[in-house]
């Protein structure tokens, strides 16, 4: 059983009190220029998912608390939450550096980017 802390309202609960929202940081490509989107890009948006064994970045919703979506960094092998951070934020630079495989590739150009707010640490 996962024990989760909402970074927005601070409530702690088990996973049934939260809703899993899958992989984090997916951007809908068709939002700005739908005509320019290829079928492959649309496929990536809809179906391709990073599926790492280890550190993963994902969305959760605080169902029975404040109802807000937020981000979490969690290990898919130990099931341990590493950090929680806001839905508009990127994880802390440390976590981005700790990411491996496809996540490392995803964060590569974002680590030094301005506006990448540091993540709030979880209690546990």
């Amino acid at each position, binding site marked *: 059983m*996962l024990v989760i802390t909402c970074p927005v309202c601070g409530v702690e609960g088990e996973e049934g009190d939260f809703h899993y929202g899958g992989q984090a940081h997916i951007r809908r490509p068709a939002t700005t220029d739908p005509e320019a989107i290829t079928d492959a890009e649309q496929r990536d948006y809809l*179906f391709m998912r990073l*599926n790492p*064994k280890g550190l993963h970045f994902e969305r959760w919703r605080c169902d029975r608390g404040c109802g807000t979506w937020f981000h979490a960094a969690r290990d898919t092998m130990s099931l341990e939450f590493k950090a929680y951070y806001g839905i508009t934020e990127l994880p802390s630079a440390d976590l981005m550096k700790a990411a491996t495989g496809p996540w490392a590739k995803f964060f590569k150009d974002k680590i030094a980017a301005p506006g990448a707010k540091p993540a709030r640490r979880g209690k546990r």
Partner: protein
Amino acid sequence: MNRYSVLSLARNAVTYHKDWARAWRSPEPKPAYDAVIVGAGGHGLATAYYLAKEHKLTNIAVIEKGWLGGGNTGRNTTIIRSNYLQDASIAIYELARSLYEGLSQALNYNIMFSPRGLLMLCQTEHELRAMKRTSHANRLAGLDCRMISPAEVKGLVPIINDDPGARYPILGAYYQPRGGTARHDAIAWGYARGADAMGVDIIQNCEVTGIRRQGGKVTGIETTRGFIATPKIGVVTAGHTSLIMQMAGIDMPIESVCLQALVSEPIKPVIDVVVMANTVHGYMSQSDKGELVIGGGADPYNNYSQRGSFTALEHTVTALVETFPIISRLRMLRHWGGIVDMTGDRSPIISMTDVEGLYVNCGWGTGGFKSIPGSGFVFADTMANGRPHPIAEPFSLNRFIEGRLIDESVAAAVAH
């Protein structure tokens, strides 16, 4: 291979069963093979078996990081059915179900196939209508399935709660009389023994660490027991498919989650069919030992640990206690989890890839066991001929680009 028979049983009884030959060898990997299958689960071993049997490719190997049949093949609830909604699904699952019927004879290995009948309960008006729709689709495809009334359900399953005032009353069921169960380990062992007898090397404790390519073609596979040269690789690794395919630079549209199952203490026979209650997320059958075999929905979050949450188990057990009040005081003996690979449309991927010589068979999600013979049969054909088998063709990776999904997620996402 020593054939198993009444005579061989009698002969070995004389020597107190101490002289049975090993069912398969434990060979050292050769430096090169005509094809290498990654993953010695049911699907991988079936693929190797049919490659050797149907396509005379016997210089092949199956490599496995753990032990043969130690993954999801030995972790499922052994349900076999083919009453899916979409034509492409019906074709492959029915091929598998029909192969199961003669598999004990074909393999000379008792897989304990038990076509005991399978009921999918209809517990809401919506579900009743959806099942009727599936039943029409199945009848058009020639499947032996039919809708049955609540009275017939009670006749088949006397322990079911038929209270019309229940929160989820029994409004009927969709019945596949030829569905049922089989012994899961025996599927892996039977295929392994059959493939081994034809010369296939099954190499256990051998983990893949890399896929070597040159000019867009597969040239070999790096393993913890050395490099193996091969022009063809079939990846059949279920939950770990994303990781293996990454070694060849291919991203997969799958997510790995944990699916749990549990068995009760053994009791006298109370239920001689398989019952699936999809609305409330639970399914149950009774094994020959008397244990009730119980499964339900998968845990929602990505997970590689083979450990799930009690939340999902509680949900499953709650549903089944409502449906079968008689089980409320049973103690559960064992529970476990397996890592399943879920696709967006809840249908498998049997496909060639952009890398020549690299084939993938994955995405069976929560419903892989029932499809083992069919999956192995069409995947072997695909690998041997370098083009998709007609039944495998709709399940290619391209379907996600072309938008022709085989949507079983509404029809069967829960109890698959």
